[in-house]
């Protein structure tokens, strides 16, 4: 039986702001779709482009990275580096013809539970609209 595949979203959240923001969203019972799965990283600067590509390779349909607001990084400067790295990677993915909306970077503080939930909700909607991510397939492997 063919099971309908729900779009799968991987969210990388920095421990100090965004993961805490996600916890706050939970404490306040703010719903967002269950297909968002969070991976805790110490800082947005810990997110290696490899992880993002790996997620797509293994079937993720959208990847979102959340960190402290610029200037508020727990480690002072981590999110500034992350911003450059992620910007360049996103640009490259778009250049390769991968839909721009499949990846997102958002700054969510520990106090922004509502923003976290709203962000995940809107991102999940965008990904649902885009459907399954097929764009990284190799022509030779196409099923």
């Amino acid at each position, binding site marked *: 039986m063919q099971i309908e595949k729900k779009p799968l979203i991987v969210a990388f959240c920095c421990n100090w702001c965004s993961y805490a923001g996600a916890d706050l969203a939970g404490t306040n019972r703010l719903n967002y779709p269950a297909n968002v799965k969070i991976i805790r990283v110490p800082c947005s600067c810990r997110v290696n482009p490899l992880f993002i590509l790996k997620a797509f390779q293994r079937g993720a349909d959208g990847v979102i990275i959340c960190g402290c607001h610029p200037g508020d990084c727990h480690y002072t400067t981590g999110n500034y580096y992350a911003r450059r*790295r992620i910007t360049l990677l996103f640009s490259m993915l778009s250049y390769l013809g991968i839909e721009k909306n499949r990846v997102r970077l958002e700054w969510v503080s520990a106090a922004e539970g509502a923003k976290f939930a709203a962000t995940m909700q809107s991102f999940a909607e965008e990904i649902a609209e885009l459907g399954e991510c097929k764009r990284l397939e190799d022509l030779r492997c196409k099923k």
Partner: protein
Amino acid sequence: MQRIGVFVCHCGTNIAGTVDVKTVAEMLGKEPGVVFSTDYQYMCSEAGQTLIQDAIKEHNLGGVVICSCSPRMHEQTFRKACAKAGLNPYMVEVANIREQCSWIHKDVAEGTEKAVILGRAAIAKVHLNAPLTAGESPVVKRALVIGGGIAGMQTALDIADAGFEVDIVEKNATIGGKMAQIDKTFPTLDCSACILTPKMVDCAQHEKINIYAYSEVEDVKGFVGNFSVAIRKKARYVDETKCTGCGICTEKCPVKNIPNEFNMGMDNRRSIYIPFAQAVPKIATIDPNTCNKLKTGKCGVCSKVCGAGAIDYTQKDEIIRREYGAIVVATGFNMIDMTKFDEFGYAQSKDVITSLEFERLTNAAGPTGGTLLRPSDGKHPHTIVFVQCCGSRSTTENGKPYCSKICCMYTAKHAMLTREKYPDTDVYVFYIDVRTPGKNFDEFYRRAVEQYGVHYVKGMVGKVAPRADGTLHVQASDLLAGEQLHIDADLVVLAGAIEPDKSARGLATKLTASMDTNDFFTEAHPKLRPVESPTAGVFLSGVCQGPKDIPETVAQAGAAASKVIGLLVKDKLTCNPCVAQSDELLCNGCSGCEHVCPYGAITYETKEFMQFDRSMKPRRVASVNPAVCQGCGACTVTCPSGAMDLKGFSNRQIMAEVDAICK
């Protein structure tokens, strides 16, 4: 392969309500390497912890996965519990199935499925965990308190009394803060100065306390136990070691028309000034923006009259760098700008004042010597209207969405004292809600109404219209009567919202301490760790964390002090073992990691490595100082060869989580 035990917590119905915990335990029991899987009512309870410990011993577990609340909540609890059973605490992973699953999803099938996936990710990660041992770092046995109001002073005194050195950094010329401006304190009506000034003197005289007044924090480096802080001592143009505080200069200075900040601009001070009689340190300060000598080079009166020869026009700002083991933030508050709410006419009439201005008008050391007089014409006001919630509980751009907490009580105090001193005065208080929780607080408010005859009106003021005859036409609603009231008042007092001091935002950045959307510092846990910031070694005292009255502030100041003392008594601190490490066989020596490290934790050395042809070749390789590294991981992503990795959040661990989630 690790032998892994899985423990699924019900958290009462918090998790079990939307997640079928039995199924989760059963499904995760089938994962590779899982030798034991169970569920339990409250995993964090003593019985729950015992269950885990017994399982570790019985099944010889090498790794533990706990499916429960956020790791930010109980990771430490479970690590400690496992350590007691002989398992390395870093062999424990927590799957967050409460905050990030059961609490946000309603459908049980959906919640259960997600919980299983989150559990799988944790299992996949724990397979790659390695036992970690925490290192140690020394503790500098001195604390820094930023802000010299009642919060900062109380914290400093408590820490100093425990025998540790404390530095207070205060941006104004004197310590004392807002409490020094207040006349009486609720609900006992003691004189604020009478209870505050002895504490100021205690601070000045305490051998362990060092006050840097007229100073600001320039930058903060380091980490818990080992902060290094640069303090900018602003030039006073007065030699502190010589000034006796006699005040002759402040009487002779020819620049007389500078609005006196201490009296909320309701009278004037000179260009050289001592903020108030009980100032600590009692040293004159020249205001460089208004001093003729500093601006034009002509004058020098203060220098001529100073018998001690303390005036020094060439003084420069000085940067002092000091080491601290702990930092307490006590930056306090200000009232918001009432000109943004000019339906109340604050900018249009002198007789519309803020509550803090009212304090000065009733204070014996204030501009009127304590007699309540209208600022416009110096006459006694006969009708006074107090307006509550001016900018508090307001979701508009200029307002603050929170309750400022202190206004209900101080307004009751103002109203009561006015009626007591001037029984011929009609006093109206317009309120939305009267909020007086606290010991003897509601009784106090009721006394104002019942004994002192203050008119409390449920409703809000919509417009204050100044009249030609000097009265203020107040248009307001009386919601209980269903009427619009029109009152001709002589004085209108606005209980403006309070907001964190503007300097707090920049300070938070320097401390990498987080703030909420209103610029209040966030606490490490809202209930369980209310005086600690999430940044280790940084503590919170007073209103910088949220609106508070004086008793609460003092209580919190003491709590912060006890946390600091608890830190400073330790000789060594356990470091976070989740730090970066470099594999020198893979390191190219490119220095990329060194560039991005915010702590300077990475150094290079040249070592010889054997080549394929068995010859030796020198190569630069990175090494990480684990006591300095804080584990952000910036270096790991810079490293193309993957030589730099982060323990506890390694590339393979994170990718294993990705794999498990995407399976």
